[in-house]
């Protein structure tokens, strides 16, 4: 943009507004890191839990979820810390809201898991509802349709769980995670490099 004093006509003005706004939006699109990280971890944990519990009958099958959290949480926090360091002190309203949505999801998740354990019911349908909700809001904030569709896959998975038992819930969650996290995550990643 070397023509700093070039006077624009209305068509050019409109084009610049549209192009600049599109560019600004794309600049803070998520790169898919969290969706890929948690997508692989959750899908892997679902399959591992299913194998250990339903196939092998291993009593401490639930430890895979602890392992998933031990790997995923520090990786996610470290990634955000490094990104904050790079971006601070620049605020970004969409990113801030995105963070708040997933923070609310994390708190809700802990409560839902505790309640489900106490009530001795499978937490998976409830988790899928919560994940679907957060993914839907994220997809809407980022204006990224694959995430919105991914949220619908999560909700559909939750509804399907009504007709299935706990072990099958794990498989449904694994599939819903692939559809709702991994596919949109890879699409976000690809989009970033376009």
């Amino acid at each position, binding site marked *: 943009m070397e023509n700093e004093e070039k006077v624009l006509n209305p068509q050019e003005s409109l084009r*610049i507004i549209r192009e600049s706004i599109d560019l*600004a939006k794309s600049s803070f699109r998520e790169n898919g890191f969290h969706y890929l990280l948690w997508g692989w971890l959750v899908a892997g944990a679902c399959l591992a839990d299913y194998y250990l519990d339903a196939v092998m009958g291993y009593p401490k099958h639930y430890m895979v979820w602890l392992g998933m959290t031990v790997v995923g949480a520090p990786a996610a926090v470290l990634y955000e810390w490094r990104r904050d360091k790079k971006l601070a*002190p620049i605020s970004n309203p969409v990113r801030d809201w995105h963070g708040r949505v997933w923070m609310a999801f994390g708190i809700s998740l802990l409560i839902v898991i505790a309640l489900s354990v106490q009530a001795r019911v499978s937490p998976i349908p409830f988790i899928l509802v919560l994940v679907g909700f957060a993914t839907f809001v994220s997809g809407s904030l980022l204006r990224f349709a694959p995430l919105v569709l991914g949220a619908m896959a999560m909700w559909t998975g939750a509804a399907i769980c009504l007709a299935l038992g706990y072990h099958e819930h794990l498989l449904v969650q694994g599939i819903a995670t692939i559809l709702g996290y991994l596919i949109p995550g890879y699409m976000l990643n690809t989009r970033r490099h376009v």
Partner: protein
Amino acid sequence: MFKSLDPILLSQLRLAIMSHLIVVREADFNALKDQTGATAGNLSVQISKLQEAGYIEVEKTYKNNYPLTVCKLSPRGIAAFEAFYNDLKTYFDQDFSIK
């Protein structure tokens, strides 16, 4: 009836800066340079003009011991951008919106 457009925003680079800031609200100098593709000198001049018009606030600070210039859209700037956009609409027959 066509409405006259704000001359401050009838500049390619100034309009690009304002359009960027209308989305992100604040951005540092390097981010604006990347987004607009402008040279540092040119960008600096146009930022000063927007600041003089009261459309943006410029804060000079430090990050990791390096100087950091942060540009923030002011309420006046938001009003000016919205007015510019509404005035721009009068030049077009068809209904349009920026999504």
